[in-house]
């Protein structure tokens, strides 16, 4: 076995170890790994190279541009996809190359420090940080990367930060994410079968009874369904809405490229006509919202007032021709003192107004001005609202 054979073999083993080490490994396996590293400097070198490959993949931004069925395509075709890029490539003998050795040694140090840090982080939170709120409880949590999550009552989510990605799983409820920008480490929020991807933006995810609602407050985002993502190696056609697979993958990222604007309120699916980008993504900008149903279908992109939609994050409840019953339900989520409406006619009555979520008394006072009601307060049962006979 000559030197290049040994190196090839070492590269193969390093790749295998890298993939295995991404999962939970037993102490016996770690022992084997350490022994393998201590067998030869070539093993160490090849492991460091695999780390570089991983770093390059984590930095790669053109996944959606990759050619379809391209294993046998000539490379020239790929180059032609991005002709403008080549014109910007600096000449190989740029004067700054004289400093590259020093620079790269520093850079190796720096990038390895980051990897050490992030792997330590990951070790600390192998099972994830759990954030959970009860009825009547709201929280605002600063995450280690500078992102902030505003968590609504009755919500549970898990935060898992890894070296190449930031992952949050929303098990129930809703949360607003202000994502610290970091293109090298995308931010994923998963709810049910839906995944939202962001680089640096503000958006909310709500897990409703049989759907997931994504609302964008800032920046531009793109949404990709699983049906489309499965076809990474197929020609990039758009799936007609309604034929998506049972699980829908929503991918949201801050897109720097121009996104076709969606205007107007969509009452029917309008995704195909309005906002499909080059890669089959549904592009959303600020003040747009999409709902993914349990069957994976979307109702199309809606234009919304995100400040109104996300007012809950600021502790405000906004009602616009919503029923009293709905308003009471919302107040009860935010407070220990529970409201009860005994009369069905009153419960169905539409109301509009802006309220502080933590102040059910002001809502009761408001009700008293618009309807003839009698209010009883009880330490155990909370506040009960009865409609007076005479109000009919």
């Amino acid at each position, binding site marked *: 076995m000559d030197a290049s054979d040994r190196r090839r073999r070492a590269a193969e083993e390093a*790749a295998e170890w890298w993939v295995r080490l991404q999962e939970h490994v037993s102490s016996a396996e770690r022992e084997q790994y*350490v022994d393998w590293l201590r067998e030869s400097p070539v093993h160490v070198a090849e492991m460091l190279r695999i780390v570089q490959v991983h770093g*390059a993949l984590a930095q790669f931004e053109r996944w959606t541009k990759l050619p379809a069925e391209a294993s046998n395509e000539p490379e020239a075709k790929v180059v032609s996809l991005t002709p403008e890029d080549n014109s910007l490539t600096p000449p190989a003998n740029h004067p700054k190359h004289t400093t590259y050795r020093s620079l790269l040694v520093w850079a190796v140090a720096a990038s390895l420090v980051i990897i050490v840090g*992030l*792997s330590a982080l990951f070790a600390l939170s192998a099972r994830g940080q759990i954030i959970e709120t009860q009825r009547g409880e709201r929280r605002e949590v600063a995450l280690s990367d500078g992102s902030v999550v505003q968590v609504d009552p009755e919500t549970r989510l898990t935060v898992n930060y890894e070296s190449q990605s930031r992952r949050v799983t929303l098990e129930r409820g809703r949360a607003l994410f202000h994502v610290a920008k970091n293109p090298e480490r995308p931010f994923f929020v998963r709810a049910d079968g839906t995944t939202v991807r962001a680089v640096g933006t503000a958006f909310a995810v709500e897990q409703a009874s049989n759907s997931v609602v994504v609302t964008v407050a800032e920046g531009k985002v793109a949404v990709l369904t699983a049906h489309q993502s499965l076809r990474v190696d197929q020609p990039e056609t758009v799936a007609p809405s309604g034929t998506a697979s049972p699980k829908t993958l929503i991918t949201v990222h801050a897109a720097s490229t121009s996104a076709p604007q969606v205007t107007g309120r969509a009452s029917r699916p309008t995704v195909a006509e309005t906002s499909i980008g080059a890669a089959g993504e549904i592009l959303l900008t600020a003040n747009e919202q999409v709902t993914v149903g349990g069957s994976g279908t979307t109702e199309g992109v809606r234009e919304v007032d995100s400040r109104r939609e996300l007012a809950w994050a600021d502790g405000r409840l906004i009602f616009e021709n919503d029923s009293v019953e709905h308003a009471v339900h919302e107040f009860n989520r935010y407070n220990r003192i529970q409201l009860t409406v005994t009369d069905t006619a009153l419960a169905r009555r539409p109301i509009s107004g802006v309220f502080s979520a933590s102040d059910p008394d002001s809502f009761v006072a408001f009700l008293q001005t618009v309807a003839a009601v009698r209010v009883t307060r009880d330490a155990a049962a909370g506040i009960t609202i009865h409609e007076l006979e005479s109000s009919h």
Partner: protein
Amino acid sequence: MTDRDARFRLADWFLKWRQPLRKFLIGKGTVPTSDLDDVAQEVFLRLMRYDRTELIEHPQAYLYKMASNVAAEWAIRGRYQRSREPDWVAALAADDHSDNVEDQAGQIELQDEIERALVTLTPQQRQVLKLQFYSGLNRAEIADRTGLTERSVKRALMKSYERLRHRLDTERFAKVSHARVSHGRE
């Protein structure tokens, strides 16, 4: 509490080193075979000296830590040896917003390079990588979506990394050799 402090420190580190990380990953800032092998040789010696049972606890963390120490020590040594090179010190001090044209060009060059390498993979390998890096799926989910077994997903990942390692190395080495010849360095 200590964990929390550690996390904030790590976040600081990350912000501080983002720019060098990008420079490290762009084409001309990559490590030529000989330099990386030198670092590896020194790391190997340290691994041999270190207590095996401790290494087994967090092998990857120790590996990265040693490699980053070696690289940092050499960089400090290099700073005194090369007095005519203030450029890169300034570059390291620059913040994220100072991306100049050259950085952007380097970034594009890197993206081109990775794209060319990815095209040499099989469609299935590319699909698996895309689902991991772009869609953020874990292996079980990738298996679920592609209809592959988890074992096949792992296999595709291993093969992809190995292939990309050779592919990227060839390109980079050619480029670095060219730069060295151009400047008559070492």
